[in-house]
């Protein structure tokens, strides 16, 4: 299905929102306003937005430690996200999760995960639930190149393949698993070839091209809804920030030329150029979107800052369901 101009503009807005959200998250982290750990998604926006554009609200996604982008693309409220980063009681997890554990079950976002590869089995189970219900819902697991070396990856793909589950495994190959380069850590040139071992389709796509990502995802979703089983999608991308934000003088093992090179392929600029070229938007429209996005994120930060902290003894709540 070709994307409408309206959809393309919405995708542009979402990518800009993700970038601005994480730009502010990084800023607030370094200002000392956000405790803990922040893993910025900047540079990878086309993956989350391209894949989620192919999904319905009732489809499920599982995310990673670098999860803000997926969460926004699935339709979560950035005010509640930012409040969670600030550790406030109004946050998605009432301050119990923070950046790495945001979930919004109401939009099908079944949780970010601090353990590499751990979301794949859970997504596989969400796909099994859809199959058991005879629903045409699908479940997507986002994960990185590093996770494809985990047993959870291999066990999940095998399970989904033998049961023909409506699962889509989206590998964001940003070329670095924390500090370990994929060129060293992967036994294969591309993660997608690992699909062959589980008898399912594997495809590698330019993860900075949101339309290309959408097209591949849309095909995988169609397959899954039709009961034809899972797909492995590898999106070649790059993270612009270090693995996680660190105060002081962070050690980033990546060569600076590599980072600069990647920034020449800015997924947002690429889509912006396409929108201008196809006369879907004018420069003024894009600037207007950017201003609106900045205002929305500013509002989210203000909401977070104005929100109350949890009561210390709230730590004792939510361990068990009634």
């Amino acid at each position, binding site marked *: 299905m070709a994307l409408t101009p309206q959809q393309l503009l919405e995708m542009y807005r979402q990518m800009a929102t993700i970038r601005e959200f994480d730009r502010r998250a990084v800023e607030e982290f370094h200002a000392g306003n956000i405790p803990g750990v922040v893993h910025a998604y900047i540079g990878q926006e086309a993956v989350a937005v391209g894949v989620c554009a192919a999904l319905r609200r009732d489809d499920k996604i599982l995310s990673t430690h670098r999860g803000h982008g997926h969460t926004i693309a699935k339709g979560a409220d950035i005010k509640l996200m930012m409040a969670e980063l600030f550790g406030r009681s109004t946050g998605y997890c009432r301050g119990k999760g923070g950046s790495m554990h945001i979930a919004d079950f109401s939009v099908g976002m079944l949780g970010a995960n601090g353990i590499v590869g751990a979301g794949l089995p*859970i997504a596989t189970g969400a796909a099994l639930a859809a199959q058991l219900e005879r629903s045409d819902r699908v479940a997507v697991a986002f994960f990185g190149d590093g996770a494809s070396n985990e*047993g959870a990856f291999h066990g999940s793909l095998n399970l989904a393949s033998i049961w023909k589950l409506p699962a889509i495994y989206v590998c964001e190959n940003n070329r670095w698993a924390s500090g370990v380069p994929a060129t060293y850590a992967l036994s294969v040139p591309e993660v997608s070839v690992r699909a062959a071992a589980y008898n399912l389709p594997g495809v590698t796509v330019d993860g900075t091209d949101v339309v290309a990502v959408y097209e591949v995802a849309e095909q995988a979703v169609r397959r899954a809804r039709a009961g034809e089983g899972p797909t492995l999608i590898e999106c070649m991308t790059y993270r612009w920030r270090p693995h996680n934000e660190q105060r002081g003088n962070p050690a980033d093992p990546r060569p600076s030329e590599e980072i600069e090179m990647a920034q020449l392929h800015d997924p947002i600029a690429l889509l912006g150029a396409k929108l201008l070229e196809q006369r879907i938007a004018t420069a003024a429209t894009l600037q207007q979107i950017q201003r609106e996005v900045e205002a929305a994120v500013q509002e989210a930060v203000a909401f977070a800052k104005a929100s109350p902290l949890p009561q210390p003894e709230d730590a004792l709540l*939510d361990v068990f369901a009634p």
Partner: protein
Amino acid sequence: MREITYTEALLEAFREEMRRDAKVFHLCGALGALAGLIPEFGAERVRVCPISEEAYVGASIGAAGSGFRPIVSPGMMTFAFTAMDQIVNQMAKIRYMFGGQATFPIVFRASTGGGRSAAAQHSQSPHPLFMNLAGLKVVMPTTPYDAKGLMKSAIRDNNPVVFLEDQMLALRGVKGPVPEEEYTIPIGVADVKRQGRDVTVVAIGKMVLEALAAAEELAAAGIAVEVVDPRTLAPLDKPTLRASVQKTGRVVIVDEACLTCGAAAEIAALLTEDAATFQALKAPPKRVCAPDVPIPYSPVMERFCIPDQARIIDAVKEVLR
């Protein structure tokens, strides 16, 4: 009352709960006795998995978060150690980390214990490990009656419940009375298996049977032993345990798990830190546990490690001295 085995009791619980709620289904590493459910419920709801515990234990979490009530059975708990991330980091924590916005009703059942020369990787009593994981309930029933009633409650519970079945209870095929009519046993409630005024023996899993045998033998010598089975290890039934020890003033705690940081240590602590129970004690509490070694293969060494009737009798006599 009719008598059925531990395994038959569990199968009855599964059958009743699967009829009651279409969202209940099985993910299992091997069918075993569950094959008996397939004629009625089909292979889709009684689903055999490849040997990828990490993948299918994780899948149970995803299914639970999507509205189902999976019962996941990797077989032996030692096999499930390959799924520890999914159990420890996911199953136990995600409801909490997500601020309570979702529920994960899962029964995670596995067999434990030693006693058949299976050596250390097929003989372990790791329940204390799970008792130390906030977010999991842990039950460990001994009799067919308790197994059925607690399984039904575990399936209906809106949280992950680790359901531990001592492998010898199923293997021995010992029968026990189970009523035909429906019943459940609440999680978190201990049971006094035998009344006595002289010494409380708190016993877990198949140690309950050893304790009852010891109590019978000691009764002949004029010693009245009260045997208490916690049945649920997390949360522990503090009032029942404390009340028994306040009555007898003496306590022996028997567990097949290793001594250090075991269930027996936790029980000893909850008894002694309570002022009324502490004041009622006439002798220091005594633990009877496996030594801090992996379970060995050769039967003579294995018997040396696993507590039994004789060791319980010695311990009772010691606290009575």
